């Protein structure tokens, strides 16, 4: 039997718990009224329940801090809202920049909460595709709430936030894949579908690799706009720095720029970047050189020489791998040979990057260690297979000796038997 005093304690705790649950959300005039309003709304319009999880609530901001009005005016709708000078009510799209910017563009204010938080969001936004369109009267653009949410705003690194890395493509495509929304701007609506099937899309969305770029990594966040043609290599080069460096030094860089071709984009695409295949270098259907160059152009010979080098590495590697597997199958230990195969594979990846120099000598020098590793693996595998043959030979000799010896013993037994028989006769 639990003592009566314990029951009292439990009862008190229960009544407190309801308060504790909302203790971060001040139950001011706005909240106490709107909780009741919420009960008559659909789930998706329940403002207070959304706001409870908002980052601003945790920092002590009330509804009035954005919407204006008097949070102390309990049970008086007019005093709280309509008759109050500061009251904004529902914030229109254009008004958002001012309302959010009131705090978020104020470095002195923001420094209270974080010393390194950015305060340039509004400035950036005004330069963005969205910002410029909005200024020109196009209301079908994203503003702060379109991406960050309105009442349940979560920090960027919260996986539930619409602006968390993995969620960004879906958030952007909410508008950018919708033809009615994009009608006024005339922009295409196939980016998300293309991105989904791309190397980056599959890495981010299917494998969850947040190292892979989402829309904002190439287009920017608040200053979102398509990269300038002359800057594409810088954008891609943020991660693919080797390819960028090699390409910038190559003779193709200036030629592309002069022709208005977006460097990396010209061969690899932008949203639909597929995993490149070696067939890009072959002079056939998938060639990325043929669209510009005639068969008589030296580009053909160069592309084919690259293709040859890579193909030789591939076939060499495959051959070496098969031999190592054969040796392993026959019971030999091949762990050191696997290292050589690994080195060869790395050389192959290296070579595929090196072709961005469009320099035959450079590519061939880079591929040489790969061929060496392949040779080492093949020699090692051959040695293992030779050892197998050596063992078989040894077995053969041993079997001969035993057979010979056994037959000799057999004859000896026979001889003794005969001796005994003749002795007893």
């Amino acid at each position, binding site marked *: 039997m639990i003592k009566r005093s314990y029951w009292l304690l439990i009862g008190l705790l229960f009544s407190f718990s309801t308060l504790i649950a909302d203790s971060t959300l001040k139950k001011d005039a706005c909240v106490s009224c709107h909780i009741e309003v919420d009960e008559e709304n659909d789930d998706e319009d329940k403002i207070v329940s959304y706001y409870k999880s908002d980052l601003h609530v945790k920092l002590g901001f009330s509804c009035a801090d954005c919407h204006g009005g008097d949070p102390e005016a309990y049970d008086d709708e007019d005093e709280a809202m309509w008759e109050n000078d500061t009251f904004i009510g529902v914030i229109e799209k254009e008004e958002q920049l001012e309302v959010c910017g009131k705090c978020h563009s104020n470095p002195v204010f923001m420094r209270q909460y974080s010393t390194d938080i950015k305060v340039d969001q509004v400035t950036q936004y005004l330069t963005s595709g969205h910002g410029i369109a909005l200024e020109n009267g196009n209301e079908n653009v994203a503003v702060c709430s379109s991406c960050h949410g309105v009442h349940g705003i979560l920090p960027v690194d919260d996986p539930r936030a619409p602006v968390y890395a993995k969620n960004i493509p879906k958030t952007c495509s909410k508008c950018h894949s919708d033809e009615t929304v994009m009608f006024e701007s005339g922009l295409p609506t196939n980016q998300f579908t293309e991105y989904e099937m791309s190397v980056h899309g599959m890495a981010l969305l299917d494998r969850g690799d947040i*190292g892979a770029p989402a829309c904002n990594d190439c287009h920017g966040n608040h200053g979102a706009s398509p990269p300038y043609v002359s800057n594409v290599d810088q954008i891609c080069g943020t991660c693919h720095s080797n390819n960028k460096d090699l390409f910038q030094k190559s003779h193709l860089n200036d030629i592309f720029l002069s022709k208005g071709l977006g460097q990396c984009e010209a061969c690899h695409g932008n949203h639909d970047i597929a995993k490149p295949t070696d067939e890009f270098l072959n002079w056939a259907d998938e060639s990325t050189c043929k669209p510009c160059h005639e068969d008589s152009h030296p580009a053909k010979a160069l592309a084919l020489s690259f293709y040859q080098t890579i193909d030789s590495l591939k076939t060499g590697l495959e051959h070496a791998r098969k031999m190592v597997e054969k040796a392993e199958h026959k019971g030999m230990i091949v762990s050191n040979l696997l290292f050589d195969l690994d080195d060869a594979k790395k050389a192959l990846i290296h070579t595929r990057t090196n072709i961005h120099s469009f320099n035959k000598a450079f590519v061939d020098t880079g591929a040489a260690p790969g061929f060496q590793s392949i040779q080492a693996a093949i020699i090692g595998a051959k040695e293992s297979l030779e050892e197998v043959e050596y063992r078989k030979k040894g077995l053969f000799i041993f079997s001969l000796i035993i057979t010979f010896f056994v037959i*000799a013993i057999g004859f000896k037994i026979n001889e003794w038997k005969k001796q005994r028989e003749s002795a007893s006769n």
Partner: protein
Amino acid sequence: MSQTKRSEVKKERRSFLNTLLKTGLVAWVASVIYPVARFLIPPKMAELNVSSIEVGLISDFPKSSSKIVRFGRKPIIVIRKESGDFKALEATCTHLDCNVQFKSETEQIWCACHNGLYDIEGKNISGPPPKPLAQFKVDIAREKIIVSQMDLS
């Protein structure tokens, strides 16, 4: 054939058979002793040790240089810092498994595949790598550099 001739032939056959028997015995014993004797002689490498390896002499490593060596089944990168101290880290990038390299100018470790960057302690500081590089213990014993697994304590 006479009686003596017959027994002589029999004696010859017997001694021939005995010779065959002796040869067979000797051959068999040799075919067993040979591999056993070779087995007993220890191979040049005393043991297959993957808990620690010797990567070379201090003199093999100029300051601000690095080398990738095999540690059991994994590649590791052994770095000699500007200060002269040694650092050993796993050489496989934690993003998509490329081999990392040492950048002596900034004393950082860089992955060429997607521009991932680690500091000299192996902590991932920029780019896609999600985790730091695993650490290895480095000991110096009489000019020799010995790399071994980190103690789990």
